[in-house]
């Protein structure tokens, strides 16, 4: 099978992007991704789009974006894996290059969530479990799903609301340094604790914002990397995948996400690394509890010790394993289908030591990990990158 590299990347500013439509927003990522690879849209035979796509008016967003960006004629598909749609799109493009069906592929993530009102967004994401048994009569919301986990984790391991708040404080600190982040202000533990309750015990500042944004990566085979004289490819060492039940009531427990555990084991094994080899990670922190569970599920610490990592600063620069140095979903923003692609753009920059020194992770092994979850651990993807 072919080795696959990231040879180009692009990223729009995240936030309220009501001044552009979905295709214009996507161009902001696709154009620099192609340009940084030394390619034009005509060179790319296959494009995948990560987009959940119920918030904006286009039912076939991949086609609309491809036309706008000059990719008409390329193979196209829209990939849905809820909040992991971006990684699902990368995985699809990666598979095409890895299997030798094409030497180049473009993976795009694009989502515009600000075109409809917040209550309707809450409705659409709340329906993303098992509709008949969890939404129709019980009105679950996305924060409520993670709140069920927060309550269970706090009960079992003594994790506190202050611990959760510290995750938000860390991610806002780094988000404030990231020019493409949606929320670029620092916050305090007090501010998090005093913010209004969304689904107890999760408060406003425990939750990621609703964002618009796009990101894109160009993937190439080893042969194409040589042919194009790419100086600094970042290799995709492995991509692990897994899933869990649609009905949350069928889960064994609520203190972690099995799909993250399974996907990470698969990714570590294929890349022949252990969690200790990872220099920098982006984990799925749609809610603060999600980041703490991710530390545990990905093996950065023992089960139940996630809160200690944030208390001891182990996931900041200077700690054992810096996490979410772009602000994470929490501060950078979470345009659902874009997130997975955005994580790989950030980690490619980290591996190439291209970000501001204030948020650059020190590199020892030049290994990075991206963890992207869809729904409440319904879909799980873990990607290992190496420079």
């Amino acid at each position, binding site marked *: 099978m072919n080795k696959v590299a990231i040879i180009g990347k692009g990223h729009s500013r995240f936030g*309220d992007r009501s001044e552009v439509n979905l295709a214009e927003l996507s161009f902001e990522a696709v154009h620099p991704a192609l340009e940084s690879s030394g390619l034009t849209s005509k060179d790319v035979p296959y494009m995948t789009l990560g987009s959940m796509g119920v918030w904006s008016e286009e039912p076939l967003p991949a086609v609309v974006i491809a036309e706008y960006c000059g990719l008409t004629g390329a193979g196209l598909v829209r990939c849905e894996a809820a909040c992991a749609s971006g990684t699902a799109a990368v995985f699809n493009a990666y598979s095409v290059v890895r299997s030798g069906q094409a030497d180049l592929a473009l993976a795009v993530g694009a989502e515009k969530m600000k075109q409809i009102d917040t209550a309707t967004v*809450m*409705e659409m994401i*709340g329906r993303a479990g098992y509709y008949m048994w969890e939404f129709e009569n019980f*009105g679950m919301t996305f924060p409520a799903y993670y709140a*069920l986990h927060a309550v269970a984790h706090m*009960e079992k391991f003594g994790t506190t609301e202050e611990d959760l708040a510290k995750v938000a404080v860390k991610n806002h600190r780094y988000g404030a340094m990231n020019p493409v982040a949606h929320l670029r202000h620092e916050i305090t533990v007090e501010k998090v604790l005093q913010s209004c309750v*969304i689904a*107890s015990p999760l408060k406003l500042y425990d939750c990621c914002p609703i964002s618009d944004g796009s990101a894109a990566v160009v993937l190439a085979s080893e042969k194409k990397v040589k042919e194009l004289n790419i100086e600094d490819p970042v290799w995709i060492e492995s991509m692990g995948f897994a899933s869990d039940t649609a009905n949350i*009531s069928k889960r064994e427990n609520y203190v972690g996400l099995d799909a993250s555990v399974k996907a990470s084991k698969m990714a570590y094994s294929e890349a022949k690394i252990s969690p200790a080899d990872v220099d920098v990670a982006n984990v799925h922190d749609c809610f603060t509890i999600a980041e703490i569970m991710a530390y545990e599920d990905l093996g950065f610490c023992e089960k139940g010790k996630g809160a200690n990592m944030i208390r001891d600063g182990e996931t900041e620069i200077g700690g054992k394993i810096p996490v979410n140095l772009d602000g994470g979903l929490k501060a950078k923003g979470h345009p659902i289908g874009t997130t997975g692609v955005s994580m790989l753009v950030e980690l490619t920059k980290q591996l190439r030591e291209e970000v501001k020194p204030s948020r650059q992770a020190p590199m020892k092994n030049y290994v990075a990990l991206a963890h992207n979850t869809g729904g409440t651990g319904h879909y799980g993807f873990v990607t290992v990158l190496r420079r």
Partner: protein
Amino acid sequence: MSEAPSLKSNRPLTITYNLPISKTTKFWKELKEGKVFATKCKNCGKLYFPPVADCGNCGSSEVEWIQLSGEGKLVTFTEVIVKPASFSKEPSYIVAVAELVEGVKVLAWLTGIEKEKITIGMKVKLEAKVVSDKKFAYEFVLA
């Protein structure tokens, strides 16, 4: 939504789904009688809640109906304060997951208790609930 120039679409979309229940009709009929049922695979013995017509575990479509005792213990819960659009007229509600003595877990509202008084592991009872004259659901109450 911001102040940037935009066109308001003139084509609003209202969707109401019809949810098929012909294969689980017994569940909804019994609910109306105040009973909550699960299904059990006659081939491999796996108990299902929510009820199913087919067993994903072994592939059999031979299932039997089992009435649940409703007795259970609270596993986790949350109070939903910021609600989805279609629940906007409801007061805040508590959603709980409890494990029933039969071994299945159920997600439903927990009513008749304030959030502050809820503890993990407390005993709860799953009961059928009349939502309106044509609609029936189920909820947890204190045991």
